[in-house]
């Protein structure tokens, strides 16, 4: 083998090794990033549920103590808060004011479905939010109170559960991300 060929192969191995190293780094950082993203998402979902609970308390106050009609109650709460949930309340208020002839439950369901798809709420959170509209507005204030309290109870349970698991889940997602990335890197190399 000529010295030129040896030099050529050496360079080839060096480049190939360098590329593998870069690839491994990318895989590990990508997988770890995904793990961190999942952990952050979990925290965001918890924050969103806590914020939603606060908004439902405000809505309850508007309905029970201010005796405001639904449209006005949604609008007031929507204006006093922010984020995608405030947007949801304002849209619901707008559609309620417009009175397009459909039942409130249907209208609320459509509004929740059109809500920001990138929101941190899980599908089951969206479903229970949709269910809230089933009995909202109809019959007397007692019914409204019970309906809202039931939903608040569900929210409380979910929030408690999430809080209890927060640290564990965050650690799990981040370590799984890093370990998964390392495993993939080893496997591919």
């Amino acid at each position, binding site marked *: 083998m000529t010295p030129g060929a040896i030099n050529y192969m050496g360079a080839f191995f060096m480049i190939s090794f360098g590329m593998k190293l870069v690839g491994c780094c990318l895989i590990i950082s990508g997988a770890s990033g995904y793990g961190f993203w999942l952990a952050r998402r979990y925290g965001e979902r918890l924050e969103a549920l806590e914020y939603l609970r606060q908004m439902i308390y405000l809505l309850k106050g508007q309905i029970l103590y201010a005796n405001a009609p639904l449209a006005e109650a949604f609008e007031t709460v929507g204006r006093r808060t922010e984020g995608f949930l405030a947007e949801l309340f304002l849209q619901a208020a707008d559609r309620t004011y417009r009175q397009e*002839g459909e039942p409130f439950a249907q209208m609320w369901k459509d509004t929740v479905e059109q809500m920001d798809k990138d929101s941190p709420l899980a599908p089951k959170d969206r479903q229970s939010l949709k269910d809230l509209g089933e009995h909202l507005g*109809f019959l007397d204030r007692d019914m409204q109170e019970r309906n809202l309290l039931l939903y608040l109870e569900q929210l409380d349970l979910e929030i408690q559960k999430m809080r209890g698991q927060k640290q564990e889940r965050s650690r799990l997602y981040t370590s799984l991300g890093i370990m998964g990335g390392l495993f993939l890197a080893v496997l591919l190399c």
Partner: protein
Amino acid sequence: MDKRDELIKIFPKDIRVILGQVSVDFNQIQEIRLRIQAPLLMIYNNREYYITPSGKLSKRAEEAYLVSRQELKETLEQMSNYSLYAFEEEIKQGFITICGGHRIGIAGKTIVDEHGIRTMKFISFINVRISHQVRGCADGVLPYLYERGDILHTLIISPPRCGKTTLLRDIIRQVSNGNGPEPGMTVGVVDERSEIGACYQGIPQNELGIRTDILDCCPKVQGMMMLIRTMSPRVIAVDEIGSRADLEAIEYVMNCGCKLIATVHGSSIDDMKQKPVLGRMMQEKWFERYIILNNNGKIGNLDQIYDSRGNQLYGGFLYD
């Protein structure tokens, strides 16, 4: 928003489509009635018609559109703008006033406790009564209600459905705005059943004049006192007086220097004299003018006007 839009908006989609096809003058509609599994009815020009699924008015019951339980529930939802709970107090009294001043009468199963009717459930009957204002219907009466530039204590006596509230409404509007040489006066209205001003979320849907303050859904006795203490009205107007408690409140109003315009159910001066509370008021000449309406011929037929001594000042037909 015209009357057609105002009315159609309170119904669910299917009934909206049907009513949208009805080719009548919505200003002439008096009532629309809905009952579960019963025909959709309309009272138009004093006649009752069935409404067919294609939106035609018919006299044949078998052609009528039948209202379902779901549609009635949705109608309640729509007419309260999805907020039936906000009308709890009105539901106890059996009616809801909606945008435009129209009144929705409701009937179903009442829930009663020691304080009276608590609420109503299984609402199965709805009567949409379309609001009609007759501006200017008091033109002929007003010259009799003033003396030396001041309004007189006036009692409108009329059997039901003869237009006493319509007349009272126009008197309030004209006294408040001022009419001809008479300057406008501050008028306080105690609208116990939301019939005079037909307030929707606090805003009167009927025109009651620029100097009018309304206490909506307020019991007459407390309302009259409250208005005197807080709004210093020159004139107080109330609908359908007659109880002993009213007597004391009216006495208080008159002693405060306010003028009172009120209505009462009755058919004649003699009929009034027989009633214990009103008989006393007449005997003691509390009111300075009595306007008597009847339904001979048409709604709003003026029979007579008397002064406090019983002298007839007017007799005959006054307004359409």
